C-alpha cells in the first residue's frame, strides 16, 4: 500500500494533478490550514507489563479468590481496605475509587476474563499480538489502529483535508499499535512538537519543504509544517482542565491531560494513545495498599480526571484500556503474581453499556483455571476492540483490522 494515498495536503497531491509549481505555491497558501473538525475519538491506554486483573476488578463473590491469594487478596466490601462493590460479585480495587462515580453514572464498562487467545506468557510477544491485532502471528507489519486509519477516511472520501492530528501517540516512538502506512504523530509532549529554531529560520525551513521537487519528503514536510502551525493556532495549551479535574503530575496523568487539550482544540483527533508501565508485579505487589495500589491510584485518578475534564464531550469519546495478559490466579512465593493468561479491561464513554461487568466469568476452581493456574479466557480482546471501532468509530472493515478473527459474538460493551 502506498502511503501517499493518504497525503492530503502539500505538494505531491497537487503536482500529480498536473499543476505547475508556481500554481502550487499559491495553492499551498490559499488552501490554508485544515478546517477545525469535531468527531468521534477513541483513546487507547496500554498498561504495559501485564496488569493483575484479579486485584483490579476483584471477584469478591468467588470464594476461590481468597483461597488462592491468602496474603494479597482484596478484602470483601464493607471492611477497611475492602473492594468497592460494583454488582455484589465484582468490586474495584480500593485505590480505584476515582472510577466509582463513572460506574454510578453508567460510563464505566469493565470486561473480565478478556485477552489474547495466544498461550504466550512473553510480555514481548503478547504486546506485539495485542497491538498488531493478530495473536500468534508475528510478522504483521502494521498495528490495528493504523489499519483503521488506512481503511477509513482516506483522501478519496474526505472533502476537507484530513487533519495531521488524526492519530497522536504520547510516546517517543510510534507505538506498534499505530505503526503503518497512514500518517500518525508520536510526540512526547505538545511542548516538544515545535521546530527548535528561531523565527525566520522556521520560515526558511518551511520554505525548503514547500518548494523543490514534489516527493514523499516534501509532502510529509508540508504536513509537518501544517501540523506545527495548526497546533500553534489551535494552541491547545490554552485549554486548562475544566470541571475542577485534577490530573496527577505523573507522566501518564500529563499525557491524558494533553489528550484532553487536543480533543478540546478540535484539531481533528480521532485516535489517541498513551501507555503506562509498572504492572509486572512479581514481587511484593501488596494488597489494598502497596505497589499495585500505587499504580492503580495513578491510573484511576488520571482517567477520572480525563473524563471529568472532557465533560459532555465524553458523548463522542471512548476510552479503552488494555494490558497484554493477566497474572496467575494464585499468588507466588514472594507476595506477587507471575504471568498468567486472561485479564480485564475498561471501556469508558458516554454511550457505553456501563454499570455492568461484561464477559463470562469462568470461575477460579482448579479445573476452571487455564493450565491449572490462570484465569481462563472467555472473551477474545478482538471481540471488544472490533465492536468498539465498529460501533464507535463507524468502520465496517473490522475484518481488515483483525484479519483471521472470526468471532461473531458481540461483547456488548457498546
Amino acid at each position, binding site marked *: 500500500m502506498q502511503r501517499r494515498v493518504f497525503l492530503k495536503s502539500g505538494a505531491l497531491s497537487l503536482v500529480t494533478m498536473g499543476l505547475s509549481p508556481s500554481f502550487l505555491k499559491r495553492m499551498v497558501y490559499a488552501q490554508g490550514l485544515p478546517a477545525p473538525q469535531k468527531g468521534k475519538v477513541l483513546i487507547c491506554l496500554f498498561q504495559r507489563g501485564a496488569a493483575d486483573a484479579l486485584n483490579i476488578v476483584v471477584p469478591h463473590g468467588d470464594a476461590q479468590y481468597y483461597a488462592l491469594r491468602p496474603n494479597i487478596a482484596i478484602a470483601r466490601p464493607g471492611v477497611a481496605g475492602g473492594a468497592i462493590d460494583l454488582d455484589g460479585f465484582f468490586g474495584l480495587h480500593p485505590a480505584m475509587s476515582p472510577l466509582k462515580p463513572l460506574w454510578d453514572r453508567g460510563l464505566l464498562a469493565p470486561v473480565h476474563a478478556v485477552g489474547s487467545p495466544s498461550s504466550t506468557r512473553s510480555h514481548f510477544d503478547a504486546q506485539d499480538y495485542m497491538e498488531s491485532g493478530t495473536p500468534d502471528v508475528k510478522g504483521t507489519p502494521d498495528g490495528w489502529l493504523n489499519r483503521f486509519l488506512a481503511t477509513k477516511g482516506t483522501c478519496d472520501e474526505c472533502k476537507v483535508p484530513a487533519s495531521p492530528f488524526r492519530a497522536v501517540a504520547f510516546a517517543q516512538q510510534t507505538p506498534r499499535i499505530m505503526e503503518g502506512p497512514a500518517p*500518525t504523530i508520536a510526540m512526547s509532549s505538545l511542548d516538544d512538537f515545535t521546530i527548535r529554531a528561531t523565527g525566520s529560520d522556521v520560515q526558511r525551513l518551511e520554505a525548503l519543504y514547500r518548494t523543490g521537487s514534489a516527493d514523499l519528503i516534501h509532502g510529509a514536510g508540508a504536513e509537518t509544517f501544517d501540523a506545527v502551525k495548526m497546533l500553534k493556532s489551535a494552541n491547545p495549551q490554552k485549554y486548562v482542565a475544566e470541571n475542577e479535574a485534577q490530573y496527577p503530575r505523573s507522566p501518564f496523568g500529563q499525557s491524558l491531560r494533553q489528550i484532553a487539550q487536543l480533543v478540546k482544540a478540535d484539531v481533528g483527533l480521532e485516535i489517541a494513545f498513551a501507555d503506562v508501565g509498572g504492572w509486572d508485579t512479581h514481587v511484593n505487589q501488596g494488597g489494598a495498599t502497596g505497589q499495585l495500589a500505587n499504580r492503580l491510584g495513578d491510573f484511576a485518578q488520571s482517567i477520572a480526571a480525563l473524563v471529568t475534564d472532557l465533560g459532555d464531550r465524553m458523548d463522542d469519546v471512548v476510552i479503552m484500556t488494555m494490558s497484554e495478559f493477566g497474572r496467575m490466579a494464585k499468588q507466588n512465593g514472594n507476595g506477587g503474581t507471575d504471568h498468567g493468561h486472561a485479564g480485564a479491561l475498561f471501556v469508558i464513554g458516554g454511550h457505553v453499556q456501563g454499570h455492568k461487568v461484561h464477559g463470562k466469568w469462568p470461575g477460579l476452581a482448579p479445573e476452571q483455571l487455564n493450565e491449572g493456574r490462570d484465569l481462563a479466557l472467555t472473551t477474545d480482546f478482538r471481540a471488544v476492540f472490533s465492536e468498539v471501532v465498529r460501533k464507535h468509530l463507524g468502520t465496517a472493515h473490522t475484518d481488515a483490522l483483525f484479519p483471521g478473527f472470526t468471532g461473531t459474538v458481540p461483547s456488548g460493551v457498546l
Partner: protein
Amino acid sequence: MFRVNEKGGDESTVYSLEKSHMRLTARLAAFALVLGACTTSHSTTGHVATSAGGDVVSRDDHREQTADEQVKQALNRLAFGARPGDAERVRAMGVDKWIDMQLSPQKIDDESSEQFVASFPVLSMSTADLLASYPQRAQLIRDKKNEMAKNGEMVMRDSAGGKLSGLDFTAADSARYKEAGRQSRQMLVALQTAKVARALISERQLEEVMVDFWENHFTVFSGKGRERYYLTAYERESIRPNALGKFRNLLGAVAKSPAMLYYLDNAESTVEADRPALALRRRRASSMDTTKKPRPHGLNENYGRELMELHTLGVDGGYTQADVIAAARAFTGWSVEKPRESGVFIFRPAQHDAGEKLFLGHRLAANRGIEDGEQVLDIVATQPATAHFIATKLVRRFVSDSVPPALVDRVAATFTRSDGDIRECLRTIFTSPEFFSRAAYKSKVKSPFELVVSALRVVGARPDSTQRTAQMIAKLGEPLYGHLAPNGYSERGADWINTGAILARINFGLVVAAGRVPGASIAEWTDAKELEALPRATQVDGVIRAILGGEASSDTRKVLESGVNPIASDSTSAATKLSGFENIVGLALGAPEFQRR
C-alpha cells in the same frame, strides 16, 4: 557513446568499447584469481574496468549517472555518506576500484576504528564472562527467593492482606536490583556506541553497511530478558564474520546463536510429549524439588516460521503450516547451554523429536539428531524463493525502493550460481546499469541511523564515546538493537517519513549545527574554517557542495543564500539575513535534499 574518466585528466586516452572490454575481462579474470572465489562477474555485464597502474577507466554506455554522480552514489550506498575529502579520493582512485576494495574489507586497514572499539573492553568479552560480570537482575531476585525459601519464609502467616512479614524485599534489595539493571544496560550502550562509531569512522564502510543489513534481516530485540547478554557475541561472531560470505554460513551461525535461539524461543522448543525423543530425559536431582515449576514442554513454532517467512523464503515462498511444524520439529533440541552461565549453543538429544519429518518435499529420516536442523537450513538456503527474497532485499537496500525486477533476477541468479555468495551478489548489483541509473540516484530515503551517521560524517565528526548519538538515533525512531518484532526495521523510505519524523529530522540538523552532538563541532570542520570569512554566497556554495553534494534546487539555494522565503506572501517578514554560518549548516542538514541518499 560512452564516458571516459581518467585519473589525472589525461584526455587523450580513449578506449574503444571492444578493446576496453577485453582489458576489463583480463582485469577481472586476474582479480578472480587473486580472490580465488569469483565465478561470476567476468561473464556478466562487463561495464567496468579497473586498469593497471592506478589509471582508472569507468566507462559504460549504460551508466546514466555522470562520473560525479557515480562517486556520490557509491559513497551513499556502499558507505554511510561521504566524509570531507571522500569524494575526491574515490574519484581519484576510480569508483569501480573503490567498490572492488570495499568488497574485500579484510584488505582494508581499519586501525582507528578498531582502536575506538577496543576502548570498550566489554565488546570483546565472552557471553559467559558477561553473564558472570554483570549481575542479572532476574537472577538476583531468584537468589533472594531461594534464600527466603531456605529460611522457611515461604509460609504466609498474614492472611489479612496487609504487610507480609519476612517476605518483603528491603529497600537495599530494590536498590541492588536497580543498579544491576543499570550496569547490564552498559553492555548495550557499548554495542550501540561502537556501532555508531564504526559507521562513522570505519574504512570498511561496506562491511558496516552489510553488518547493519544482516543485523536487521536477522533482527533480535535487546529489550527481551537477557538478550543483551547474547548480543555482543551475536554481532561479533555470528553476523560480522559472515556479512560478505556465504549465506548458508551466516544462516547457520544465526540459527545456532543464543541470541536468535532465545529471541525466537527455539531454545524452549522441545519434542511433544506424544512423540519419541532422540534420547531419554535424564532426571536431575533438582526436578525432585516440588517448589520448582516444571519447565514447559512442547513445540515452539516461532523460529521455524520466521526462518522461512523472514530469513529465507519470504512470506509467499511456498511453504505451508505443515512445513512450519516440520521445521520446528527438526530444530527441537537446538538450545542454549546454561543460559544464565555459559550461554553457548547446545544440541539436547533428549529434547529432539526423533520422528520422521517431511519438509518442503524432503523426507528427513527418523532417529537423526542435529542433522535434521542442518538439513532444513541446507534446503531453505538453496530454494529459488530464498535467492529471490534475499536478492530483492539487497536490491531494495542498495538500489531503489521500487526494485527493478530484471536486476533482482540477475542477483538471484548470482546467488544460486555462486552457492549463496553474498559478495558476488553485491558485485552483481554494483556493476549493474540499474545501480548507476538515473532512477536509482538519490532515490533512497535515509533511515534515522543513516541520517545521523551521514550528517556526522559530512561535517567530519569524531566518534562520540557517550551514548548521546545513539539516543538521538533512537529518538528519531530507530533505537539500535531495539526493534521489538522479528521483521526488522523497514528498508522502505515511506515508512520512515511521517509528520513527527520530519520534525525530529529538522530539529536534529539544528542540534548538529549548534554543536550539541559530542564529537561534532562545526567550528572544527575543515570546510567551515575555509568558508567562515567568505561572503555569504560563497559560504552557501560551500555548504551545498559539502553537505548536499553540490545538489540543491534553486529554491533551496535561494533560501540559504538570502534568507528570502520564496513562497512568503509578503516580503516584509522574509528579509532577515541568516545570522551565521551554523544556520546555513543547520538549514542544509534539515533540508529535504539531505534526507535522501
